[in-house]
């Protein structure tokens, strides 16, 4: 999953985590952009030439989610925007030229794909799909589902900060999750309690660089190709971690006040930390 994963199961005897590890391996080998033989790369090879491809049930479900998320967020949640992230080199602190940005934008945009489940058609060649914004959260949900099916009473699955829980820890009524303080990432700035829910957090404080006196964060706007520096961090709670992930990622792409209004209208539980360190909760 490209990040630290912590799996917790509450059981009377030492549990066997193999079934969860197998599921995580399965999802990684299927949806990783970095595994040449992944199913995702097979989809992207069809995308190269602007072809159509029929997807299996699971991927169709993920694409249907992405399609609805694109509409829900007015195009902010876009699984085709990976080329934009690639052109910004945060390690070398290089700002790409306007030509490079325009070219990447020309190969970005879910509207350039036609989705008629289970057929995905790339109407423009060289679009690339990245399900990285969905799969980690989906994997957390899958772990919870499988653990429930296996008869476990409670568990917590933390896949690089995307957390799914069910039941409650021993001698407590709910899971208590600390939200990182962007100023002091080792210290929690707030605590969120979860029962059968998911929590996803997006932040813009861990990866950024300064160039000509300007800060560039790692979150790139899918329609301008430019980094955005609105909120420092957004955490969203939702029964499905995959939905929480869609909402937290998208809220990071909105100006602070707009994000707060949007999350309030959605009626979800959230914590937004602005650039001054002020905390907004809903």
């Amino acid at each position: 999953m490209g990040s630290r994963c912590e799996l917790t199961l509450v059981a009377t005897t030492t549990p066997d985590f193999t079934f969860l590890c197998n599921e995580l391996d399965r999802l990684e080998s299927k949806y990783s952009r970095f595994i040449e033989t992944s199913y995702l790369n097979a989809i992207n090879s069809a995308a190269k030439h602007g072809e159509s491809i029929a997807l299996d049930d699971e991927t169709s479900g993920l694409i249907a989610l992405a399609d609805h998320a694109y509409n829900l967020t007015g195009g902010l949640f876009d699984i085709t925007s990976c080329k934009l992230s690639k052109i910004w080199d945060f390690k070398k602190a290089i700002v790409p030229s306007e030509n490079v940005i325009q070219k990447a934008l020309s190969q970005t945009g879910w509207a350039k794909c036609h989705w008629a489940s289970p057929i995905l058609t790339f109407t423009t060649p060289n679009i690339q799909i990245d399900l990285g914004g969905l799969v980690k959260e989906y994997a957390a949900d899958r772990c919870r589902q499988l653990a429930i099916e296996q008869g476990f009473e409670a568990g917590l699955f933390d896949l690089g900060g995307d957390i799914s829980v069910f039941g409650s820890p021993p001698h407590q009524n709910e899971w208590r999750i600390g939200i990182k303080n962007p100023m002091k990432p080792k210290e929690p700035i707030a605590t969120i309690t979860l029962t059968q829910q998911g929590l996803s957090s997006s932040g813009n404080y861990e990866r950024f660089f300064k160039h000509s006196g300007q800060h560039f964060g790692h979150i790139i706007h899918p329609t301008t190709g430019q980094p955005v520096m609105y909120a420092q961090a957004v955490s969203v709670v939702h029964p499905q971690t995959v939905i929480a992930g869609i909402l937290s990622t998208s809220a990071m792409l909105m100006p602070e006040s707009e994000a707060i209004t949007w999350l309030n209208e959605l009626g979800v539980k959230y914590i937004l930390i602005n650039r001054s360190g002020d905390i907004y909760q809903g």
Partner: protein
Amino acid sequence: MRVQLMKTSLKQQLTTLSAIATSLTALPSHAAVPQNNTTIEVGYSNYIEDDLPEEKVLFGSTSRYDIDVSEFKLVAPIGDSNQLNVEYSVDSMSGASPWYVMDLGDGPILAMSGATIVDERKDVLIGWTHYLPDDTLSIAIGNSSEDDYKANNIGLSWQHELNNDNTILSVNHAVSMDDINASDSDLFVTRPTGMKKRVANTGIGITQVISSVATMQAGIGYESAKGYLSDPYKLASVDGFIVQENRPETKYANILTAGYRHYFIEAEGALQADARWYQDSWGIKSSTIELGWHQSIGSTFSLRPSVRYYRQSAADFFANTSTAGSKYYSSDSRLSNFKGRSYGLVVSKAILGFVFDLGYEKYSSSSDTKDENVMPLGLVDFSLTTLSVKFEFE
């Protein structure tokens, strides 16, 4: 911003999103990891030529060809970098065909064959494609067989991607070796048997991404045909005698193609424009322009209307009646000066993993030629109806 416009239905959309996520997460845990999918397509099409007007026909049937085509296609990935293609079709043909043109003093008039032509053609094509990181290599071998005509063909192609995959170069070469043994040659002694024909095509092409929503293609091709290039069933009137038609035994052709695709984001539709120019050593020059529009309606339905315009000049030796001094002679309307138009519509619908295509095309042709001796009498108008269903499985 769309976010603002959609506020009223935000919660409703979130509910929909949640429902999708819930059903997705509950998929069986043994869901397979399909690395490759196999596609199967079966199709049926019906081609019907319009009847000829009686005043154009001296004798024979005014009804023309009616052809039913059944097709099967299989595309199966083999391992990570290979793909197998198999295509099989059966054409069942019946009807009548223009036989020759004669002039009894009132101007040229068409003699048709009787409505007794019944034939079946079986066509099989097996292709293999190998994918490399920036290159694609393909080979295809085919065989076509009917009572009086057998053809074996082989095609090779190479495709190379460069310029960050924004440019694709392609080269292809194909050869067909045909054997011709006309039916009923014992009854019609002029009908040839044991004749051979060899046709070779070579082409190069380029596809270029020119913007985020547009691509263009261009190609140049060369075709050479040698051997028996006449139609074994066509006769010609030479100085009033009805003899077997006689076309040159070689033909060389140059072909240029161009294409443009543009996706209109707001309309969620794509324009397809194609053009083709052709010129051969028989004197035929032709041009084709085709425009199509691919319109998505909802997530499972699409319409593809199209229009095509074609025009060609006549072969140097085309004439309804020829004189004895002519080296070559044919009154086959397909070699005449004419223009054709067609209008088509394909309706596509995806249902439960199957994709159904229903298509209809209407073609008509005409000629502006005033000279009676080169005015084609047997031009064809036809309608084509197609139905296919495609599905994929692991």
